Structure formats: C-alpha cells, structure tokens
C-alpha cells in the first residue's frame, strides 16, 4: 500500500542514499518511490513518480542540481525540493532560494531532521535553518539571503535614522515634522516603518536603543 508522502532521493553516495531510504521507509507516512545517483536521473524519476518531495544532493557529478531543480519545478510543479549538502555555503543557499526550494539541509543533520523536513515540505511549509530564516530577504525577484552582517540600524533609511535621533531626544512628531519640513503624517509613516524594522514598539525602548547604538546622548 502506498504511503501518504512519496519521496525521491538523489545522492551519488550509495551509503547515504541507502541509509536514508531505509530510515524513511521505516516511517508510517513516508515512502521512497525511487533513489537515483545524479541530477539527470532525478529529473526522470520525478517525471515518472511525481513525488511529493525530492531530496536532492547538491554535490553530485554531471548536470548541476540547480539546473535540474529548475526543470523539475517547471515540469512537476507539485514536487517540493529539499536540497541536501555537505556544506553550508551562502552561494548554495542563494541558489536554492532562487529555484524556490522548500528546504536546505546539511548532511550533518540526523535522519530525524530530514524526516521532519520532508513532512513540513509536503505540508506546504519550508525548512531552512534558523540562521538562514533570520537572514532571508523578500524582494521583487523573490527570496534571497540578506547580508548577515547588517545590523538593525543599517536597515534604516537616512530619514528614518534622523527621525529616530529626534524621537530619542523626546521631540513630538509635530516638532519633528516642523524641524524636518515634513507633514505630521509623513513623520508618522516613517515612525511606523522604523519601529517595524527595529521591532521596537514604544518610545522609551526606542530612546534606549538609540542611546545604545550611539545615535543619541544618554
């Protein structure tokens, strides 16, 4: 009897593939429909089995796994792709996001993590490490990895920074609007945006933050 979640595994290392297949087949809800050794075969297996999830090793010889992922996304749109790699490189994660992957795991993870990620992906979720989640940026072009070194202050525009300095001095929005020759509504919008970016939602905390970051005198 087929299991609710069908998976294809693509990895050129027999031991990894075999161990993972055995682990997943021992679960009640995940069944391995096929296991292949390179990206070309991964495309064929996806076309044949239409799995819910493809677990795709990044570091295989032959066709690039990211090119294969693009083909699979186009031809099997319901198949979710989780990348598996020995490495945690920004470039790989960027490419995984660019091909709209549902996850990125390293081979250092225990099989339970892969099992859980497959369930999440099959259920319409994504599975990236917390480190990746906190750096993820959404733009016009989709999701990408932001600059991890960027501080919260660096996310503010020059105008938002200026308003933060004034707020930290205890000025009212009306006073700030007069000082900057802006409407109160515009100042209010900037305040809302900078509070969102900093995830700080009261003026006292904002002032403390500004002092801590050297933007205002204590």
């Amino acid at each position: 009897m087929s299991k609710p979640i069908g998976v294809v595994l693509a990895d050129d290392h027999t031991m990894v593939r075999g161990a993972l297949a055995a682990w997943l087949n021992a679960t009640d809800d995940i069944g391995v429909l096929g296991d292949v050794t390179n990206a070309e075969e991964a495309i064929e297996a996806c076309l044949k089995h239409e799995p819910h999830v493809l677990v795709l090793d990044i570091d295989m010889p032959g066709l690039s796994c990211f090119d294969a992922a693009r083909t699979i996304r186009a031809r099997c749109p319901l198949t979710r792709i989780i990348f598996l790699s020995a490495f945690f490189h920004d470039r790989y994660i960027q490419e995984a996001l660019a091909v709209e992957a549902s996850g990125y795991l390293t081979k250092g993870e225990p099989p339970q993590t892969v099992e859980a990620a497959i369930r999440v992906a099959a259920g319409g979720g994504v599975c990236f490490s917390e480190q990746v989640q906190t750096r993820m940026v959404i733009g016009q072009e989709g999701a990408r990895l932001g600059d991890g070194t960027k501080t919260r202050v660096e996310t503010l525009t020059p105008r938002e920074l200026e308003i933060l300095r004034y707020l930290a001095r205890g000025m009212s929005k009306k006073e700030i609007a007069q000082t900057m020759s802006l409407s109160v509504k515009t100042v209010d919008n900037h305040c809302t945006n900078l509070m969102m970016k900093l995830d700080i939602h009261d003026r006292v905390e904002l002032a403390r933050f500004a002092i801590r970051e050297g933007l205002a005198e204590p």
Partner: protein
Amino acid sequence: MPSDADGSAERKTVVLAFQSRHIREILATALAGDGLSVVQVGTAEDLIQRVRASSSRVHGVVVDLGQTLGASSIADLRQSGWLGPVLLVSEGHAVETDPCTRQLQKPYAVTTLCGAVRTMMSEQADFGGMP
C-alpha cells in the same frame, strides 16, 4: 478544525494572500513559528471568500498580490464589511489605503514582516478584538 485540547483554538489567525507560493510558504512557516495560525491563499478572490467565510476568526490579513490588485482587494475586503487590520506589501512606493492598513515596502527581511504582523495583532488586541 482547531481543538481546545492543543490550545490552537486560542491562537490568532492571519490570512496570507500572496501570489508567489514560495514566498507565501516561507512567510507562513515563519509566522507559524511565532505561534500564529496561518491560512494561505493565492488570489484576491480566495482572500475575500476566505475572510467572508470566517470573518470572526480572522485576526489579520497580509496582502502581496501586486500593487494594483493588492490595493483593490483590500478595498473589496472593506466593502464586504471586514474592518480588521491589514498589512499591504507594496512595491517601490506607498499607495493610498484606509487607516487600518499598514504598508511594508519591498525589499524586507522575513523577520521585519513577522515583527510587523506581531505589532498589527497587538494593536488589534488593544482595540478590543474584531469589529
């Protein structure tokens, strides 16, 4: 249906109306990690239908359906009588909306959107719940 036993009945529900399935799934995962119950829709029609069907159980809406369609879908939501908080993701420049609609411009960090949704929900709580 959420059950009382697992506490999910008390979780607030946010509807994510995003054209991009991938972005929707990334944000849904992040918001669910914040303890919210997340409903995903991909079109303006589904958004209106979903909110109409369970308006008292929807505590907030996040919309990214493109600049024009996003704003018009919010107008349709309001016309349907739903007056809860909305976060509109805008592209490039802010658009004219009602006072209960906040805006977030692209590009934005996933953590920023989560913070904005938390703020939206807490303000709604201060307001005293659903209209």
